[in-house]
């Protein structure tokens, strides 16, 4: 399996402050990889860094390579990045209510990417391709939707439009940043289904960011657990979710298990995610970890066969034999 996306030692910094550090991940063709963690753990920044769309004042370090493009995307200029975005790699954002231009018709917003990357040279052809795509993502009466403005659609419908825009040029890599978080539970499953179908139909690589472990379990093959701007554990979904090694992962799993309670109260991870830059030195999780010892004050090294499988914990959870 060839890697479509390969990030090595990816970091995001603002001034001297490191917000994301040493993220190494690969996503192969047809592979679906989840990136999970609490809010503030650096998932979205990682996604934006991969796309080269970090907001002003933030910069990326390390290396990001897209299969078939010789250049390292970190530090690449617009001339190199713009032709890749929306064509080879594209993104679905968290907030469907604001991700679309309120003053432009849906059809034009979908057609724009195809015209830009020359999938269609004529406006009329791009428009009808846009209607087809809207039909593909399951919008009822797509021709009508193409003429509508975003405010005339519901949140779930808008997210379908955002997905249609992202899939318009059959990208090799689709990055989804919490695409269903803002949606009603009933709509979530539909949008997830359309994303997985869209990716499968194009044999594309999927990097799926979420804090919802249930979603990862249904969508992804592999998962990376992120905390404090670092990858703390990685592996096959079945492996990580049933036999977590890192203390943070096990805490996260315990907290999402509604059946497990402590005297009738749901389990939580004690404390809260620190402010950016206020994470402890050494193991980023040690100030919230019950198992932490002085050994955790130095950065734990990665234990595992490769960056895609393993954990970074000095006192890993024992695996029952």
């Amino acid at each position, binding site marked *: 399996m060839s890697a479509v996306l390969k990030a090595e030692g990816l970091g995001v910094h603002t001034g001297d402050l490191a917000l994301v550090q040493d993220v190494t991940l690969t996503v192969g063709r047809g592979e679906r990889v989840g990136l999970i963690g609490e809010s503030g753990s650096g998932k979205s920044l990682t996604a934006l860094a991969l*796309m080269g*769309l970090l907001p*002003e*004042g933030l910069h990326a370090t390390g290396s990001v390579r897209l299969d078939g493009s010789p250049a390292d995307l970190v530090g690449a200029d*617009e001339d190199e990045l*713009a*032709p*890749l*975005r*929306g*064509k080879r790699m*594209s*993104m679905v*954002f968290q*907030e469907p209510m*604001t*991700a*679309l*231009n*309120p*003053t*432009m018709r849906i059809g034009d917003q979908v057609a*724009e*990417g195809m015209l*830009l*990357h020359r999938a269609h040279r004529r406006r009329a052809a791009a428009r009808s391709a846009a209607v087809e795509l809207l039909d593909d993502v399951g919008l009822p009466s797509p021709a009508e939707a193409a003429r509508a*403005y975003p*405010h*005339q659609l519901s949140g779930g419908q808008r997210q379908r439009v*955002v997905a249609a*825009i*992202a899939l318009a040029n059959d990208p090799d890599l689709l990055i989804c940043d919490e695409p269903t978080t803002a949606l009603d539970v009933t709509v979530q499953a539909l949008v997830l289904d359309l994303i997985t179908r869209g990716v499968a139909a194009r044999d594309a690589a999927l990097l799926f960011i979420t804090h919802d472990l249930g979603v990862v379990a249904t969508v992804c093959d592999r998962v990376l657990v992120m905390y404090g701007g670092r990858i703390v554990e990685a592996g096959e979904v079945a492996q990580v979710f049933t036999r977590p090694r890192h203390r943070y992962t096990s805490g996260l799993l315990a907290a999402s298990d509604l059946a497990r309670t402590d005297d009738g109260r749901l389990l939580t991870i004690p404390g809260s995610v620190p402010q950016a830059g206020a994470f402890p030195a050494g193991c980023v999780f040690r100030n919230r970890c019950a198992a932490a010892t002085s050994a955790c004050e130095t950065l734990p090294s990665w234990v595992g066969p490769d960056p895609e499988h393993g954990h970074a914990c000095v006192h890993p959870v024992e695996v029952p034999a």
Partner: protein
Amino acid sequence: MILRLLSRLAVLVASLAVSTMVVFGFMVVLPGSPARVALGVNASDASVAQLEQEFGLDRPKGVQYLDWVGGLLRFDLGRSYVSRAEIAPQIADRLQVTLWLVVTSTVLALVIAVPLGVLMAVRHRRASGVLLSALSQVGVAVPAFLAGVLLVALFSVRLGWLPANGWTPPVEDPAMFLEQLVLPVLSLGLVQGAVLARYVRSAVLDVMREDYIRTARAKGLRPMRALVRHGLRNAAIPVVTVLGLQLATLLVGAVVIERVFVIPGLGSGLLDAVANRDLILVQDIVMLLVTAVLIVNFVVDLLYLVIDPRLRSVR
């Protein structure tokens, strides 16, 4: 959409109707009869009575009001109490002068403000953007009349390129008209443009942080193109609001520039009418200005509907 339009139109007509009452009412509550005001304190009762009779000022106020409004609808603004000349033609001339001044300086302001404001926003973290921003701040601080005086000192007195003042109607001598128009339009337009550029800058800065700009970038649009295609129309909404306010202010506010450049505009006309205690002329000019402001607001409302589809749907 049609419903929205009609309702805005109804609001315009209603506002105009109320304005006539307010403007007329103000003249009524002023102490003393308009004839007495026009003739002065030393005039004899007989001459006051004669003037009142001549202009129908002895009739009941209601009749006078209806007479005045009826005249307005036929563009008959009555005759001056002082010169006894027809008012409509005088005002029409002055209105034309003011419109030339206001419209050309607003166009100039837009031509300056839009590119400058976008540039200031795009480069707001760079030295060039900060420098432009500081310069525009200076422009905001300079009053138009000072700009006018400085421009005259430079271009008329020192360089002798352009006339220092005066007004020639375009039909009489187009070349002279243009020469005389340049300096007053520059003084109004530069200052107005500096103010407007600040608003364009902040509107564009706001829009640049919007999610849909990021979506556009993720499609593969370069930053400037994403801003132009997806940002400017959204940024136009607050800018149009300010532009409308500026236009309304300029209609009267141009009076200072009219004085500096000796231009017979509407604002000067109003001041002259007040100085001559010609109350009917004051009343007509005020009504005209109110009408102009209401129409500007109406057009701004229509522009909102054109720019933002969200406002078109009736809820």
